[in-house]
């Protein structure tokens, strides 16, 4: 239940515990996720680095182009951060938006020792600047892998209202580890795209229970695509990020091979399943159909029991 309202001054930790990550803006997420007052923005809105494409379509621009990048501290240790604003054009990747994230990741690669947190909230590439956006996705994926090769941990946090779709889903797949909440969704093709291309019999995008059990946070956690599941609070994501930074190991060829084996194994085990509930049943969950209704704490206990996450892979 939503916490009781307290007006007036609240301590940041208290606010982080009571603020929904899903509902918060990108800036609010960063403010409450990082140590109080530690955030410093790069290429902030005062520099007005807006999209060069949107005005051609007579569409409104945003001075930060829908992504906030910078540095801050997490429990005293330095981190580089990027947060997408899902309320501006669905958090979609455009030219400037993408370049800011590429620049952040390349800086991380040069520094080598400071981890990167990416707070995804995106529907994918911005259609109005599709070529630049697609290029940006490719550059970001390369930058993530280069940063990881240089020893940088890249953690994705997924719980925004736009989910993590399209190119965002591809980038998330490149990260060292992912944390997800129930409302968070991770996929490449979105529900409407699948329905449009393959028909409503294949996927009914208006059946929201179907959407969530196929792409939602609980399923992604049980499948091992996400490493940590958290309740939908900013504090929850802060704790998850700290935990992942602690457990993620070094990246190299061995890890890449292990990831290949993990994915092949997954396909072998569940490739014939028609529905997520079949997968959960195959994983040995007794009342699999009840999974969507489980409260966060019970689900976390269940997911930890199933233990799909492989520390060797990714």
């Amino acid at each position, binding site marked *: *239940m*939503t916490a*009781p*309202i307290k*007006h007036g001054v609240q301590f940041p930790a208290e606010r982080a515990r*009571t*603020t*929904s990550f899903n*509902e918060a803006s990108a800036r609010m997420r960063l403010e409450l996720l990082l140590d109080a007052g530690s955030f410093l923005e790069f290429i902030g809105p005062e520099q007005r680095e807006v999209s060069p494409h949107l005005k051609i379509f007579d569409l409104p621009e945003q001075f930060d182009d829908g992504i906030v990048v910078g540095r801050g501290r997490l429990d005293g240790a330095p981190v580089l951060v990027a947060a997408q604003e899902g309320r501006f054009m669905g958090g979609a990747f455009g030219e400037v938006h993408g370049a800011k994230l590429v620049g952040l990741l390349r800086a991380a690669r040069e520094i080598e020792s400071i981890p990167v947190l990416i707070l995804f909230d995106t529907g994918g590439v911005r259609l109005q600047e599709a070529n630049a956006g697609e290029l940006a996705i490719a550059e970001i994926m390369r930058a993530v892998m280069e940063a990881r090769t240089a020893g940088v941990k890249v953690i994705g946090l997924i719980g925004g209202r736009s989910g993590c779709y399209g190119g965002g889903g591809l980038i998330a797949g490149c990260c060292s580890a992912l944390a997800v909440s*129930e*409302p968070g969704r991770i996929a490449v093709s979105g529900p409407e795209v699948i329905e449009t291309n393959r028909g409503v019999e294949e996927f009914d995008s*208006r*059946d*929201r*229970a*179907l959407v*969530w059990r196929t792409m*939602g946070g*609980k399923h992604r956690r049980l499948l091992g695509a996400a490493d940590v599941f958290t309740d939908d609070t900013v504090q929850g994501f802060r704790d998850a990020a700290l935990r992942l930074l602690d457990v993620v190991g070094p990246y190299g060829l061995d890890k890449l091979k292990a990831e290949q084996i993990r994915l092949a194994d997954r396909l072998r085990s569940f490739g014939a399943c028609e529905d997520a509930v079949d997968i959960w049943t195959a994983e040995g969950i007794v009342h699999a159909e009840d999974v*969507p*209704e489980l409260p966060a704490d019970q689900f976390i206990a269940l997911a930890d029991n199933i233990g799909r996450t492989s520390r060797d892979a990714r």
Partner: protein
Amino acid sequence: MLMSIDAETRTTAATWQRHREARDARIEAGSRLARGKIVEARDATRLMEAVIRPGDRVCLEGDNQKQADLLSGALLAVDLAKVHDLHMVQSGVVLPEHLDLFDHGVAKKLDYAYSGPQSARIARMLFGGKIELGAVHTYLELFARYFIDLTPHVALIAAVSADREGNLYTGPNTEDTPTVVEATAFKDGVVIAQVNEIVDRVPRVDIPADRVHFIVKSEKPFFVEPLFTRDPAAITEGQILTAMLAIKGIYAPYGVQRLNHGIGFSTAAIELLLPTFGEKLGLKGKIATHFALNPHPALIPAIEAGWVQQIHSFGSEVGMDDYIRARSDIYFTGPDGSLRSNRAFCQTAGLYACDMFIGSTLQIDLQGNSSTVTTSRIAGFGGAPNMGADARGRRHPSEPWLKAGSEADPDSPAALRRGRKLVVQIGETFGDKNVPLFVEKLDALELAEKLKLELAPIMIYGDDVTHIVTEEGIANLLLCRNAHEREQAIRGVAGYTDVGRRRDRNAVELLRQRGVIRRPEDLGINPLDADRSMLAARSIKDLVRWSGGLYAPPSKFRNW
């Protein structure tokens, strides 16, 4: 001599029962297809052809929520040589089949009240002359006419279950059924019910068997649309601000306890602010205790927090059944425990026993007339005009009613002064897709000109509206003394719309000094406080948690 008078009297007596004889002949024809009262679904069309005559008035239920979908499909398939030119008298034109009847020539004339999902097509068909329109009614008005000049010859209704005698259980969505059956069965009409199942004993008798002539078992349950579920996740800060203004600026000072809410997001925000913002203002028990209202999921937190004492409902809402059963102190339920709704009674309650209606609209003009009609859509009125109208026949006093009356007419002697129902329109100055709420001329007027209607489809007349709430503040139209003041009061809360920018600044400032217009700061409300964290529930899942797991939202509203 005496003999001849007797003979004459007898023939006269016989001609006084022609309708009953005709009804019996129809039932006789239909009975050939039935075992007892039960007709197989595959014979439903033949049953229609046996029972319905060309030109009949037919009520095809056709409610706000539930639809006799099997029977509408069966009627659509009739042989036009046997059944044609029907006059449809039904409150809801909701399914595509309802309009296909006119395209195919099965039906010709239409009297209705609400056409939500078909509003665009019905407009096209009216323009194209495909439908001969009787009138667009309010629910209560159409129900009234069922008993005077629009009595159905045949009623095609929907129920959850029937026993073999024909007793019907309508389930939580009783809605229009008792009214339709009353008018049809007691005036020599034929009643055909589709049911989801035939049982040995119905859970409760909503319609007694002697009013039901044929039963058709449907393969799948009748269609019901969840119309009253508003996802708290979609409520904006602007709507929260208007909701705060309404609670503090209208509910509190008038002490409104008995009321009806519209179905928009602003009123959903009010429902979700009662246990938080309302609690902080110390209003619990003083406002919003008795409702004429569908079972809105958004009201669950206020119910759980002990705000609400009683709710009577027009219909039900998908997913609320178990919650309602478990909260029978609040809702009207049958001996079986499930909700008993009744649209006619609830509309009457909304008209006569409520002190306030508050709801959203699409357009408001300078006189305060409001309409949900646009030039390409005729959605009908449903119940809003009954809720949102002063009941001139009302005679019982109440504090809000008397206070509103004294504001409108301060000079008359109190004992002779009529009270006034509070009729509140709430919305943001720019609505969906940034379309302005305020207009110089309603689209409804243009539509009336195009269709040559004698009456423009006005949902709520300006002289019934008492308050308009926007993010700019509250305009109290009761305190306006002439048309000029009224216009400036409306312009004064119309913000940056064209209507708002053409305000007379001095006049608006004077109205503010008199309290006719009250800005958020005049009410001690800081717009920056209007934050989603104030909502008692911010998602459908929060509502499920508030309900202790009793509320089971339909799949389209889930995000888990």
